[in-house]
């Protein structure tokens, strides 16, 4: 069967000019070499210094301090389970010490990319796609009462700016396509207190916005552009220096980042999905870098590790265990998950 797309591609490709770029390539290679050498030297010093002081930790051995680990994460972990037929998806919750997870929400595979738990753990929001026209409803479920509210009807969503809760858990920042058909990244606030009303517009020049919840940069928004970027609530540049985070990751590990997934409450650590990921849009992240500077804080040597920020502590998940560590990287302890969560993906912690 002929393929018109192949013919179109071939026709377009004929228009690509091929300049002599040998000299430019050598110059770029040289710059790359210098950057890698500098970053490698800095990292080696950090590792050496950290090893001496105990401040740096890619933790290799884990104490079996179950009670301490459980006490450090008193809130709830949330997982996505796509074991159902036809993309049926469930959001599961589990607390340390529980025998089995509980089902929080059931829906289609849209949950996978849009379900988001409020920081206070009281609500879950998600986008419910309606028809083929790129429109959706924004839903919120009160996890205590089970009451579901439609916050927005039939808005034209922006896939790369999924709903994200504000730090006070009272409103969501939601990406939408502008009505004038122009292409760009626009977002707006929707408040739990005012369903069906568009709040303030926010122009974010990137995807996957995330709020800094506390500390010096509280209220600032980090987002994914050509790396990690940050802006203050009024749109001005944030004081949080994110410039080197992603390039350092590449230069030290040879790994490319594909998305910003989560940030620590103080905004000083970012968790990224990288080319280790085996899914097209990651809900969980595999590598944590520090901001500013971009030092690699946690990085797995295999594919199955995911991280979440649990208040001041960091939790890594691998092979049925949750490894709980302090913000310095020092180990607190290990928690075993129920076997029923083996196929589910950890994506959030709250409470």
């Amino acid at each position, binding site marked *: 069967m002929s393929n018109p797309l192949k013919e179109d591609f071939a026709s377009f490709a004929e228009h690509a000019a091929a300049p002599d770029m040998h000299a430019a390539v050598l110059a770029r*290679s040289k710059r790359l070499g210098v950057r890698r050498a500098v970053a490698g030297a800095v990292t080696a010093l950090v590792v050496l210094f950290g090893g001496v002081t105990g401040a740096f930790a890619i933790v290799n051995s884990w104490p079996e301090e179950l009670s301490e680990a459980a006490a450090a994460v008193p809130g709830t972990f949330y997982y996505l389970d796509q074991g159902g037929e036809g993309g049926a998806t469930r959001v599961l919750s589990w607390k340390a010490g529980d025998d089995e997870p509980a089902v929080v929400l059931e829906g289609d595979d849209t949950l996978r990319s849009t379900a988001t738990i409020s920081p206070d753990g009281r609500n879950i929001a998600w986008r419910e796609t309606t028809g083929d026209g790129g429109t959706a409803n924004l839903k919120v479920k009160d996890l205590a009462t089970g009451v579901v509210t439609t916050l927005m009807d039939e808005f034209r969503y922006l896939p790369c700016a999924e709903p994200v809760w504000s730090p006070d858990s009272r409103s969501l920042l939601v990406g939408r396509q502008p009505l004038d058909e122009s292409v760009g990244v626009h977002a707006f606030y929707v408040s739990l207190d005012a369903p069906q009303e568009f709040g303030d517009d926010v122009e974010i020049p990137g995807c996957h916005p995330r709020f800094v919840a506390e500390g010096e940069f509280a209220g600032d928004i980090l987002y994914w552009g050509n790396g990690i970027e940050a802006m203050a609530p009024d749109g001005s540049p944030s004081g949080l220096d994110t410039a080197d985070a992603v390039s350092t990751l590449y230069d030290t590990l040879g790994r490319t980042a594909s998305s910003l997934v989560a940030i620590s409450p103080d905004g000083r650590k970012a968790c990224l999905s990288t080319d280790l990921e085996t899914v097209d849009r990651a809900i969980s992240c595999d590598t944590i870098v520090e901001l500013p500077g971009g030092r690699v804080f946690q990085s797995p040597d295999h594919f199955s590790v995911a991280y979440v920020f649990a208040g001041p502590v960091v939790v890594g998940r691998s092979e049925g265990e949750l490894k709980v560590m302090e913000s310095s990287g020092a180990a607190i302890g290990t928690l075993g998950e129920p076997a029923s969560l083996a196929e589910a993906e950890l994506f959030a912690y709250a409470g």
Partner: protein
Amino acid sequence: METDLPAAQFEEFVRARTPALMRTAFLLTGDQHLAEDLVQSALARAHRAWSRIREEQNAEAYTRKIMYHLQVSWWRRKRLKEQHADVLPEPPVSGDSAEDSVRRIAVWEALARLTPRQRAVLVLRFYEDRSVAETAELLGCSEGAIKSQTSKALNLLRTKVPELRDHRFFAEGSLA
């Protein structure tokens, strides 16, 4: 005077393969300047690894893989800047007929609406004739993700370019 053999080999590789790499990069980015930048970035990394990859006879495969990864991972800002400027690169269109040209303009504009990953999947599958498994390996994701991305991308093309719906190749299910 003694010739620096690896350097000469690399130069020969760059000169010989730039046209083919540029064609793919142009399809991935939709823009001549972005394509040049992408190819240069990938070749610079190939140069850093040249002593290893030239012995393994896989310099082009290595360079292409780097190129795909850079494109789907790093170029969003530039793409977004293009979008903010609301200026699409001029459609590089030629056709046997006016009908061909009109359709190709529509296809070009629809391609610009795809995510970098979706666009890369289409280029690998339908320009380079890569299998699902090869595409998954090159982009570092699962075969399921490739199938899903292919389906989404083709659906968008069908929506934006209605003429394609009538073609057997684009009929629902024909790519399963």
